[in-house]
């Protein structure tokens, strides 16, 4: 059995392996897309949460069902679904986070057979009434998972699941903390592999793997080299190492991210005291910093910008970065609309920004090499 980073790397290269093994043993696997669905409820129902991702390989089947001007990430996920790559998944939870995900859910349901489907309605504004509504939505999800799993999710067992997932997030934050020093103890390429691995196995195993990795990298001698530039990467779904690896190969240490499969997923915990469903609702709707959630402007424009983006600036300061790359997947309107403001906001704070728009494919990523190099030459 591989340990530590090697364990993560192997899982990254064969993501579904463990989930398939567990299914052989009689476990049920629940796929979910995006950072919003509450893994805690899936775990509490005795099911295995599994993050659905795409691939940078060319899309073959999905173009017959989706317009090519839709999010290439979602198209790629559907492509894998139609190609039966997610056969080992028993059920699916899709949230209404963006329109692409919402609309594709129905198409997925129609063309890819699973025995369980749940659509999670997530309000767009973090207002008091939204939290109330969303907590009820989570209660509906709880009921449906209980039915599918044939179990009763007691408050006690939900709290226990929340505790284990909080531990998972705490471990990921601890590992991220090891990137503050120069050189960082773990590269962003490795971190992406770890993240992908962590979302492919039951949370208990994930915690064990993360502890293992923290122990390994804390004392490692073969960590990343010190580079002249420290970077932050901002964007949405990066589920492949290709882009981040390219940036690191160009001569930078990528030391922090604001990504859906990065800090956005694990930076905030669920409060333990009080009603667990309300607390889950608060974390998901209130604390996942995704532009799909509309944070109503209050006060001055500067206050509005601070309200939406100051956490990115704080990341940049805390991790001592000299530049940021905004890596936006083409047709992701949610992120594209915010990108110019994020760019100006960071530049104002003295952080140089490179904005790249990508169509989520391997060939386009290689084409960014010169731009990344020129950006590094500019800020070195």
């Amino acid at each position: 059995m591989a340990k530590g980073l090697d364990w993560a790397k192997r899982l990254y290269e064969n993501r579904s392996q463990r989930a398939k093994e567990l299914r052989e043993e009689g476990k049920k696997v629940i796929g979910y897309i995006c950072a919003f669905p509450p893994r805690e409820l899936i775990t509490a129902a005795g099911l295995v949460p599994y993050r659905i991702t795409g691939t940078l390989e060319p899309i073959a089947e999905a173009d017959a069902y989706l317009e090519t001007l839709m999010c290439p990430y979602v198209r790629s996920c559907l492509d894998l679904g139609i190609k039966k790559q997610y056969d080992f998944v028993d059920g699916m939870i899709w949230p209404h986070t963006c329109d692409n995900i919402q609309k594709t859910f129905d198409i997925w349901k129609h063309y890819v057979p699973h025995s369980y489907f749940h659509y999670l309605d997530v309000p767009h504004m973090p207002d008091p009434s939204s939290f109330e509504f969303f907590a009820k939505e989570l209660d509906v999800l709880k009921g449906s998972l209980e039915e599918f799993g044939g179990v009763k999710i007691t408050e006690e067992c939900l709290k226990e699941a929340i505790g284990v997932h909080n531990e998972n997030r705490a471990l990921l934050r601890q590992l991220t903390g090891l990137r503050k020093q120069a050189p960082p103890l773990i590269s962003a390429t490795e971190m992406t592999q770890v993240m992908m691995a962590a979302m492919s196995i039951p949370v208990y195993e994930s915690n064990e793997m993360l502890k293992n990795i923290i122990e390994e990298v804390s004392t490692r001698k073969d960590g990343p080299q010190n580079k002249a530039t420290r970077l932050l990467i901002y964007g949405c779904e990066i589920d492949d190492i290709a882009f981040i690896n390219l940036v690191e190969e160009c001569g930078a240490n990528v030391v922090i991210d604001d990504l859906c499969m990065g800090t956005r997923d694990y930076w905030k915990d669920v409060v333990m005291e009080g009603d667990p469903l309300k607390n889950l609702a608060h974390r998901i709707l209130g604390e996942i910093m995704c532009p799909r959630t509309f944070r109503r402007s209050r006060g001055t424009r500067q206050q509005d910008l601070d309200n939406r983006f100051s956490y990115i600036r704080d990341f940049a300061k805390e991790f001592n970065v000299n530049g940021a790359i905004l890596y936006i997947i083409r047709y992701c309107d949610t992120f594209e609309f915010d990108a110019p403001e994020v760019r100006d906001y960071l530049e104002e704070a003295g952080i140089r920004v490179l904005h790249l728009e990508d169509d989520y494919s391997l060939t386009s990523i290689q084409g960014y090499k010169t731009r990344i190099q020129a950006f590094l030459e500019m800020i070195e």
Partner: protein
Amino acid sequence: MAFFAGIDVGSVTTKVVITRDSELTAYHVVPSGANYKMAAQKAMEEVLAKAGLSLKDIACIVATGYGASNADFATLKVTDISCCAKGVNHLFPSVRTVIDVGGQASKAIRVNEEGRSTNFVVSERCAAGSGRFLQIIARVLQIELGDVGPLSLQAKKPVIYTTSCAVFGESEAISRIAEGTPKEDILAGVHNAMALKIYSLISGVGLEEECAIAGGGALDVGLIKRLEEKLGVHLLVPPQPQIMAALGAALMAEERSLALAS
């Protein structure tokens, strides 16, 4: 006093420059063809012959351009964005915006007083607004690339192009030929479409005078005219616009040697 060299292995041509004391000693341009490694080798040998030098006289070589990695004799690699900024700044120290129309892509670069790039935008992974578009249209119209500019200047009624995409642009040119539109009007239309594309690139970095144009595209007087109209500024054109990145690379080689020596 030592000599320095910069080699820019571009998608269409390979350019090499030798400098001494920050002054141009010799330069040479060869087609890159389908073997960049051979082109780089050939360009280097021929420029050395021109200058009456041998490789050991060159203290440091910087390679740049799309195929920079093929110049394996170079000491280091720097991107053509930084090199182009450097080269143009050497000739025109007051220039703050550089347009580079290359064979593969067009770029808008902001340059500071030290000749460093402070911001840049590159045309997205396609030939829109690049020199390749001109090559394609020249082939469709069966004229020499060198005649594209002068012919375009004679246009009476430039056609309106709806695209700056090289592939759609080609079919659009063919449609106009079928309608009997004169070549010069088609060419002026192409230049307008390219100017619009480059204008939108420049909007990304902000146009600050003075503005210079480099790259092979700057040899095209038709494109320059349309760009000046669109941008509303006078464009400074270096005497050999296509060697600006190679010149910048040679100057960087010099700077690097000086830095190492001190």
